[in-house]
């Protein structure tokens, strides 16, 4: 039976205030939240207008033990849960979270760097919420969500892609309730970065205006409670709106600039209509991405004209209300769209005064009552990463096309793995120290990269490109999706940028480092290298990051939105990771850090000639604390016939904190299966890092192909995530 995602709860926090009613009131009364920056000193740009949340987050009830971004996300999540009227009984294994986040704990981590650079003090405590998935973990633990959990980090399209993935979770029957949306806080990193790119209009953004001069930054969070329609009806929930369509694409054009004709934006809008089963003429209103930069607004308007022809529906950008809150913007604007449907009012586009002849379109100028049935929301990010959502009234009865679940074939795997254990020397501003690590240096095959790839890309991007090339040879007309996860992202580029920013007090920024620092930069580089123009995503979820990528890639094939999907993961070694980990006892003599990239090429039966192996089960979730092995094995046994498993590949042999759990699960599996099953681990070869389970997947595929075994890959993440994946030989056993 088809399952349809509906929206039953909303929560939001942004510069104009906290709460859906406050925000909708600000929007309908044209009250923007832009003011000069107070969050941190900015000698060069402090007077610029910015959408800062100037509220006491702790006073509002946000958890103390969390980053600024975590607190914003948590506050919006609390409101969404309350408004949906869900209680703990609806949670548990059937409730999950897919969240969008791009900045992560950077604002807090920057305090560590400032102390280090300015005062020579090494105090890494503020970095403990650095990971982008920290907010999702906090919300899941706080409200008791033990279903699928992942974070999507594709810059400004993060939360729109997260909402799409959450909808797919519900469609696929993997959860009944999904919290979804996104959060991002302001940080020096993004503040300095967008200024370095000369993309900020200090007077406040003027989307679509003839004299627009750039974006305004912002911060905040938006959360939606997405539920399966049948479950929502059963518990008598009020359905606020339907999520009737979603679509994604990649420009595969440039790291920051959109495709000049808006080709990727158009493709994503078409994909969303396709999924919803609507034609363009049925869209009543478009909430545009409309950042206020010269390039975005022009490209987006071209895409709108290509899609709608002479009859572009009323549209507006909400960016001047909130500032551009990056990963949160898609979710905040989703809240605006749902409220627009509920109130049958189209929000205005503050900042617009004069029509731009090159655009030739005028947005909605004031709050306007209108008959709204289907509305579209656009979100476009760095790397030409496009995501489009369509919301409909509950009465419209518009239901998204269901995907057919099918086993997924693995046709090849590319990997860049550590050549062995090597001494890695840390450099300034840290004290020089020698540490052992599984390193990919020197990078094999780096000479095959183009001169521009060699001169401008960091190692993490180079590793990703080389692994992807080894897995896939581009063929024209083939629709290729990329889901390349990363646990900690582009640490080297991010650190270089922010060290320089802090040391030079905003002077002499490094514009080319900033776009290379976002989590989706390696995935975007693969897209440009291989011409991959379908979905382009960067999931992140600690040690189960690879499995999340596999999950998302697989859905693209099942929904027939791609012919080939590349699922992978990449992480790199970096000074701070080594030294802070050493301080915290994360790295020991037995647990050495590692790095590398894995890319698996997937395709469905129809377009594949030679599958080498097949993924027949894949499930994501979170474990409870204290760890209950019997309960975990019940969870596994719901998806896997344990008596047929020949080999168990686990993430044991890495972080000591997970060792007792892995051992207990193995014992319980043997008890359940009624026999001992052979076991393998992989971290002795690749080291311990968030992408390591990609190497576990390689071991599983090798065993399935070489020894014709049915393999269960089981992974636990120190932050609570868990994943199972069954790999079998392609031909039936």
């Amino acid at each position, binding site marked *: 039976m088809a399952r349809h995602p509906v929206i039953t709860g909303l929560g939001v926090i942004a510069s104009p205030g906290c709460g859906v009613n406050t925000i909708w009131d600000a929007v309908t009364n044209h009250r923007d939240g832009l003011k000069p920056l107070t969050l941190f000193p900015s000698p060069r740009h402090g007077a610029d207008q910015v959408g800062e949340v100037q509220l006491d987050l702790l006073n509002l009830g946000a958890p103390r033990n969390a980053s600024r971004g975590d607190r914003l996300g948590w506050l919006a999540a609390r409101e969404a849960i309350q408004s949906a009227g869900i209680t703990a009984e609806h949670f548990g294994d059937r409730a999950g979270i897919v969240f969008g986040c791009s900045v992560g704990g950077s604002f807090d981590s920057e305090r560590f760097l400032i102390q280090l650079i300015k005062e020579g003090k090494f105090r890494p405590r503020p970095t403990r919420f650095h990971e982008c998935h920290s907010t999702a973990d906090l919300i899941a633990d706080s409200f008791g969500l033990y279903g699928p959990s992942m974070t999507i980090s594709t810059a400004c399209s993060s939360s729109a892609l997260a909402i799409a993935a959450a909808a797919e979770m519900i469609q696929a029957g993997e959860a009944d309730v999904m919290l979804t949306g996104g959060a991002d806080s302001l940080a020096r990193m993004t503040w300095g970065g967008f200024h370095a*790119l000369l993309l900020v209009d200090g007077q406040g953004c003027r989307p679509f205006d003839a004299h627009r001069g750039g974006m305004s930054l912002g911060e905040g969070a938006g959360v939606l409670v997405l539920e399966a329609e049948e479950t929502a009806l059963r518990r008598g929930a009020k359905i606020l709106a339907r999520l009737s369509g979603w679509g994604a694409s990649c420009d595969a054009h440039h790291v920051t600039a959109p495709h000049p004709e808006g080709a990727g934006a158009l493709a994503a809008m078409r994909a969303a209509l396709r999924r919803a089963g609507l034609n363009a003429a049925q869209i009543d209103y478009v909430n545009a991405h409309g950042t206020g930069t010269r390039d975005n607004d022009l490209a987006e308007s071209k895409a709108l004209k290509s899609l709608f022809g002479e009859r572009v529906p009323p549209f507006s950008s909400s960016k001047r209300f909130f500032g551009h809150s990056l990963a949160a913007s898609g979710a905040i604007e989703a809240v605006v769209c749902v409220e627009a449907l509920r109130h049958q009012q189209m929000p205005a586009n503050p900042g617009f005064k004069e029509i731009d002849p090159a655009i030739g379109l005028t947005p909605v100028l004031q709050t306007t009552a209108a008959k709204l049935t289907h509305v579209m929301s656009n979100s476009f990010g760095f790397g030409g990463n496009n995501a489009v959502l369509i919301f409909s009234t509950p009465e419209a009865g518009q239901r998204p096309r269901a995907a057919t679940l099918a086993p997924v074939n693995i046709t090849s795997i590319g990997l860049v793995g550590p050549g062995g254990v090597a001494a890695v020397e840390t450099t300034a501003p840290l004290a020089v120290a020698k540490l052992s690590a599984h390193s990919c240096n020197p990078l094999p095959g780096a000479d095959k990269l183009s001169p521009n790839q060699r001169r401008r890309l960091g190692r993490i991007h180079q590793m990703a490109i080389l692994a992807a090339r080894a897995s896939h040879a581009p063929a024209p007309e083939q629709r290729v999706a990329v889901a390349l996860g990363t646990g900690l992202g582009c640490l080297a580029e991010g650190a270089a940028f922010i060290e320089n920013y802090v040391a030079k007090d905003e002077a*002499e920024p490094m514009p080319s480092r900033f776009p290379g620092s976002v989590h989706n930069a390696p995935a975007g580089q693969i897209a440009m290298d291989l011409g991959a123009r379908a979905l382009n995503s960067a999931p992140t979820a600690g040690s189960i990051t690879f499995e999340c990528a596999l999950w998302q890639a697989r859905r693209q094939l099942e929904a027939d939105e791609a012919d080939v999907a590349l699922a992978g993961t990449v992480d790199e070694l970096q000074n701070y990771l080594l030294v802070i980990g050493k301080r915290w006892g994360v790295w020991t003599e037995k647990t050495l850090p590692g790095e590398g990239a894995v890319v698996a090429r997937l395709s469905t039966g129809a377009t594949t000639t030679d599958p080498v192996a097949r993924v027949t089960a894949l499930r994501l979730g979170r474990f409870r604390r204290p760890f209950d092995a019997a309960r975990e094995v019940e969870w596994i046994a719901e998806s896997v016939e344990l008596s047929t498993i020949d080999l168990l590949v686990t993430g044991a042999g890495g972080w000591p904190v997970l060792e007792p759990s892995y051992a207990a699960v193995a014992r319980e599996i043997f008890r359940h299966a009624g026999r001992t099953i052979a076991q393998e681990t992989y971290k002795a070869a690749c080291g311990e890092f968030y992408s390591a389970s990609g190497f576990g997947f390689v071991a599983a595929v090798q065993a399935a192909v070489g020894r014709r075994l049915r393999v269960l890959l089981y992974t636990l993440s120190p932050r609570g995530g868990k994943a199972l994946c069954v790999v079998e030989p392609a031909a039936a056993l």
Partner: protein
Amino acid sequence: MPVSKTELKTRIIEALNLQDITPEQIEDEAPLFGTGLGLDSIDALELVVMLEKHYGIIIKGIEEGGPAFRSVQALADFIDARRASTT
């Protein structure tokens, strides 16, 4: 005194990490962007930073520096003109 074009070329190579290129290989009038050295808009931003760092010239929007980035000659003329207008 006009800016040294050899020095300017060295600065460009350094700013853009043009590993395999020497100052002699860059012709004064050759286009820097598009076909020439294969540079793009992000490289232009690096040149904006380089101009401030080494020549004290502040460019606020990329359009302002656009024509100056056509070639080394254009950039040298731009630096000379800016310096003349501020002294």
